[in-house]
């Protein structure tokens, strides 16, 4: 999928710009978004997903401008760091409600699709549970199932594992990699370098409101060009085995 970003600026209520003239133009299949905390990863993803407006510049996906309009939002799947499942609905209803109300599925078709995904990811037993009755890993996997159920053009994941224990992190990342094998495009903001390196073809390093480095994940990771990325990588890998 083609992602074109031209002069994207985002400043929250008149303060200094979080995103400061970001430019990007390339095909995106699987992209990792890395950068230190507060560098604007979530902000960028939320603009791409049509959740917040940009302050300036343009963003296009496959030539269509990105906006807060629901016609754009419904084409994108979004997974939040945590707490994205509707707390008043069961796991099943979380998946079926958008299918029925937004994508015009009949109730039975929606349930069929939901169970297809739940079965596949070993979550069928949790269908009737409310989010408060699920583990963190289950919640995130159901959130991903909800996001991919309508077959979106692109999946945006905002640190889907950073609120999870390591053992749950693996099950969530495994699920995303499995989806990748089906040619689902995604952009993921993550601190999981292993995943960024092995499961994402390309990598963007965001620094100081700009794209500081971009390229093949392996290349960016092995030969960081800027001192900022070198420092970031050494920090993040300091305690890795």
């Amino acid at each position, binding site marked *: 999928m083609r992602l074109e970003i031209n002069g994207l600026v985002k400043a929250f209520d008149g303060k200094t710009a979080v995103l400061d003239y970001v430019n990007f133009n390339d095909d995106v299949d699987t992209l990792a978004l890395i950068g230190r905390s507060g560098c604007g990863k979530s902000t960028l993803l939320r603009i791409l997903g049509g*959740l917040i407006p940009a302050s300036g510049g343009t963003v296009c996906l496959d030539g269509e401008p990105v906006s807060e309009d629901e016609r754009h*939002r419904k084409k994108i799947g979004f997974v939040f760091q945590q707490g994205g499942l509707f707390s008043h609905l069961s796991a099943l209803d979380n998946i079926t409600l958008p299918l029925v109300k937004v994508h015009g599925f009949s109730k039975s078709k929606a349930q069929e699709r939901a169970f297809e995904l739940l079965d596949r990811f070993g979550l069928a037993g949790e269908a009737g549970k409310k989010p408060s009755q699920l583990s963190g890993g289950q919640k995130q996997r159901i959130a991903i199932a909800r996001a991919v159920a309508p077959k979106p053009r692109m999946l945006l994941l905002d640190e889907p594992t950073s609120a999870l224990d390591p053992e749950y992190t693996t099950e969530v990342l495994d699920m995303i990699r499995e989806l990748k094998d089906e040619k689902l495009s995604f952009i993921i903001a993550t601190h999981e370098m292993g995943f960024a390196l092995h499961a994402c073809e390309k990598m963007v390093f965001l620094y100081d409101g700009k794209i500081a480095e971009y390229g093949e994940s392996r290349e960016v990771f092995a030969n960081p060009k800027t001192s900022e990325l070198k420092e970031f990588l050494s920090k993040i890998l300091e305690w890795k085995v």
Partner: protein
Amino acid sequence: MSIFTSYSEKTHPFKATFNLVLMSLLITALFWLALSLVGVRLNFSFLAPLSGRIFDGYLMTVCLSAASFFISLLLGVACAAMQSGKILVLRYFAKLYVIAIRGTPLIMQVYLFFYLMGTAYGITNRFICGVLILSLFEGAYIAEIVRGSLLSMDGTQLEAAKAVGFTKKQQLALVVLPQLLARTLPALTGQFASMIKDSSLLCMIALIELTQTLREISAMNFKMFECYMLLGVLYLSLTLPITYASKRLEQRFDYEA
């Protein structure tokens, strides 16, 4: 049979019954003692011929509270909306309303509204006046309940509603309202129980509701104890079921936690 319980286990039904009976006996004894010290022998038989009047008063209290509940609900929601809205004049007005009403006793409001506003604007019907006063009073409390649950709405839930592609209307109808309702309903039900009790102060403007009815009866035959005991029982017959409903609603919606 033990009178002790542990915090962890559930109390056995036999033990619970035994201790409930024990408590009832104690309370009865306390009342008995008090009555005998005052030298009163209770006799409720004089109330039988008055049951029609008492029923009318009871009905009046129910109607007053029910009507006020609906109006105060509208007022409360409107006020909460104004307080979180963008129009500054309305926001200040709503804030002032809540502060003024919650900071003053109901009895003052009853008198002031009835004698000043009622007379000035020609609202002479006591029932309408009573409903207005009670609604204005409870509306301020309901506004706070509604505002509280508006504030407790989680930002991520709202973003998620956007993210799945809901329209503005759908975000409201499918996410915001159900979650607000779940959080507000138990407290609202509780407020309804308070409203029934608060309506008793409307006897001050000679509205013939339950309290006023029994005040009049007790003034006629000086049987204070019987009248006020009956009054208590009748209010409980209204508030207990509502309190119970509120508890059940709370359990039903406790997925929020």
